[in-house]
């Protein structure tokens, strides 16, 4: 899932600025299950803003609504009328949700209420860890299902480095060394020979280094309208 966390209320108030009517828009997918921007959080943020701005002496009209997914037009279109009635939209979606609203509703001013953090999973209740860097050229098949791009601090393809100590990374003794994890898993599964192949430098053009990415599936596209 996409993991995010809420911005401080003070920053949200700065982003809202002098707007009088505010609509907090939650998202029912990733940020709901990481407790950052679902229906419950949208209601809490809206109530917090109502109370806080009233205490400041300029009480704002703040309402909230949550859509199933902010990253798809069809769900955003369902709240199109509500978006037109407010001065600013506070999106509790990830960065994709904020941009989807801005793109779909060009006349709507939208600001982010979350900091989008990473792609990860809950490793225990209340704890989320990064697992994928969306590099665009998955190598998990070479590393026993443990990603050194996301989980090694240096994103090494042939690790570990000299900073691996007692199974942990030199950046923080609480961070496991991804290459130790990879070695241990391959060893346990009797597949250490996988590590005998030296991996060549990675082609980073599929990652962010190649600029904004795009996927086109011709088999799924709708036929172009004939003139």
């Amino acid at each position, binding site marked *: 899932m996409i993991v995010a966390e809420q911005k*401080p*209320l*003070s920053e949200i108030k700065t982003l809202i600025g002098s707007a009088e009517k505010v609509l907090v828009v939650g998202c029912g997918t990733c940020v709901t299950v990481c407790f950052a921007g679902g229906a419950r959080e949208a209601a*809490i943020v809206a*109530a*917090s803003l*109502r*109370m*806080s701005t*009233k*205490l*400041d002496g300029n*009480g704002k*009209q*703040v309402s909230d609504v949550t859509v199933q997914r902010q990253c798809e037009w069809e769900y955003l279109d369902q709240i199109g009328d509500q978006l037109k009635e407010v001065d600013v939209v506070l999106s509790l979606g990830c960065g994709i949700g904020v941009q989807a609203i801005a793109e779909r509703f060009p006349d709507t001013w939208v600001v982010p209420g979350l900091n989008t953090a990473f792609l990860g999973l809950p490793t225990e209740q209340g704890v989320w860890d990064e697992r994928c860097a969306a590099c665009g050229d998955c190598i998990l098949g070479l590393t026993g299902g443990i990603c050194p791009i996301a989980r090694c601090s240096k994103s090494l393809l042939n690790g570990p480095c000299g900073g691996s100590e007692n199974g942990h990374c030199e950046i923080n003794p609480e961070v496991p060394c991804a290459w130790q994890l990879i070695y241990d898993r391959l060893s346990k599964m009797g597949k250490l020979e996988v590590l005998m192949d030296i991996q060549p430098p990675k082609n980073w053009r599929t990652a962010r280094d190649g600029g904004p990415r795009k996927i086109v599936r011709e088999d799924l596209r709708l036929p172009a309208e004939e003139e």
Partner: protein
Amino acid sequence: MPGDCHYLEGNANAKRRIEHIRALLGQIGLEPDRVRMYNLSSAMASQFVAITQEMAENIRTLGKNPLRNHNAPISKLESGK
């Protein structure tokens, strides 16, 4: 009591959630001390009285909730309306 909750870890969970609420109140601009958590068993009547008096005195010191319309009937007290 801590470690001896009828709902097992219920009061430990409640303690963390109360801390979250207190932080939220602080961000909003209200005094976090408007919410406190005390641990009591049903056999601690005298402590309950003492804590109630302590909390009442605490609220008197903090003053009325500035967000509440103190003349409005209870049914109209929903925030923002």
